[in-house]
């Protein structure tokens, strides 16, 4: 585990060196612009716009980082041949994968926390005070981080056996499919084929359900989110990530690196 931790720390350092966190400047600019403009173009929904825009930006920026960096985690090391030097040391392949995963999740967590701080600053600028209901935003941000963790796991899995371009395609496709599982389940309203209905229903439970983590609307409106959902989503993201990482480790351990 210590070895995986060392890989994770280096992955984080590498991300910082690669100026991944520069996106925070973009986020800050977006928030400042929105905070200044929103009062002039909308009536009564100023804080709602800031919350929705902020959460959406955190999600989109996080997703871009998770997918684009995630798919290159293994490939880049192989391409630069640094992986061979690393695996020659007493580091198992699964430890390397776990470290890479942990490193990117750490990067995303730092990034998300910084963006969350920016969102609250913009909100404070617009509303001049914060309310208790604004704390729900923190749960929404936590859910975004859970979602990103799952996306990183998937990107890592695909990067273990395909090129970055294909891995981006696979990860994005699975992410988009994971947003529509609810529709798969309610397909009964139009489908006349019971076999297709059953197949889609089964698939909807096996695909990663990214809609689980979407509480942006509720958070923007300050509606309470039950604690049980927080716990269930945490376990869901953890369990699904473990499954994906297990498969990734199995694939990577069989991969011929010669």
């Amino acid at each position, binding site marked *: 585990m210590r070895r995986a931790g060392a890989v994770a720390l280096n992955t984080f350092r590498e991300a910082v060196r690669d100026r991944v966190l520069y996106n925070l400047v973009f986020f800050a600019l977006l928030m400042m612009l929105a905070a200044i403009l929103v009062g002039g173009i909308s009536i009564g929904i100023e804080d709602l716009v800031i919350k929705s825009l902020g959460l959406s930006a955190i999600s989109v920026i996080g997703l871009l980082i998770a997918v684009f960096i995630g798919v290159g985690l293994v490939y880049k090391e192989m391409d630069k041949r640094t992986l061979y030097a690393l695996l020659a040391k007493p580091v198992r392949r699964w430890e390397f994968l776990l470290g890479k995963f942990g490193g990117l999740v750490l990067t995303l967590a730092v990034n998300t926390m910084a963006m969350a701080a920016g969102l609250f600053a913009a909100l404070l600028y617009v509303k001049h005070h914060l309310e208790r209901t604004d704390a729900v935003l923190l749960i929404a941000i936590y859910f975004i981080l859970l979602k990103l963790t799952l996306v990183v796991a998937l990107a890592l899995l695909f990067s273990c056996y395909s090129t970055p371009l294909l891995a981006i395609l696979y990860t994005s496709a699975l992410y988009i499919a994971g947003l529509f599982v609810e529709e798969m389940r309610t397909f009964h309203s139009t489908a006349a084929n019971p076999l297709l209905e059953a197949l889609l229903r089964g698939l909807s439970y096996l695909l990663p359900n990214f809609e689980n983590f979407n509480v942006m609307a*509720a958070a923007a409106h300050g509606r*309470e989110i039950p604690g049980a959902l927080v716990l269930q989503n945490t376990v869901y993201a953890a369990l699904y990530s473990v499954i994906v990482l*297990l498969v990734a480790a199995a694939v990577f351990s069989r991969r011929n690196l010669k």
Partner: protein
Amino acid sequence: MSPANSKKWLLLVLLPLGFAGVWELQQRIDIQRRAFEQERDELVLRSGKLVRAMSLEYAPLMADIYWTRAVQYYGDKHARHDPNFELLWPLLDLTTTLDPNLLVAYRFGSTFLSEPSPRGAGHPELGIALLMRGMQANPDYWRFYEDLGFIYYFELKDYQKASAAFAEGSKHPDSQIWMKIMAAKIAAEGESLSTSVFLWNEVYQTTKDPQVKDNAMSHLHLLRVEQDCQQLDALADEFQKRTGRRPARVGELVQAKLLPRLPVDPMGFPYVFGPDGKAVLNIDSPLLEQQLLQQNSK
């Protein structure tokens, strides 16, 4: 067993277990989300013009997506017997603004909007507004007048306007001859069983959608029940004239040679006489529920 093999077997055991856990957890999350969200219906952008502008050159594709969403929304509400169709009009409004030539959206959409709750939104005025918009955008399509006449006839019971709609539609060169006949018949008789049967039969024959076909068939069944019950009541009156009492069972009409055999409803269940001596559906007949639903929605 070699370590590689044991790892493989361990993985084969762990993966199904993991997915079983995911499955179970998802069911719990679904329950939790349903309880916390209550109403998931949300439509962020309601301005058709804005969505159209944002869709760039992909407006027709967006219209298809919104139409699919409208169908799913209606189907889901219908399946859950939820009478709140609040978002149906905005969804249809968006769909037809994005693609004014999407005929299917006007036709089915007006039905979804007009049908009484819980089968539909119970807003025939919105159904009419949607059809009017469709007529404006697609002046050559005569079927909208059929749908308009249908709403006036069945939902609003405004026979004058129903007749006018059929008459207006019959002026189209492509329209069918029965449109003119319907206009005259409704103007002369108002609501009649034969007109209702004809109109529902027309829907049944022309639609390709299985759900609409089922709905039309269900209405046709109930209309046949109405016809049968009227005839049985007339025969019961005849029986009373002959014997001085109302028949207690339909079988007595057969014994009195007023009927050749026991009459059955479209589902094959024999009719019975109710406590008031009027012919009614058998309590076991599946049509009874539909009939009650229809009566409640009137």
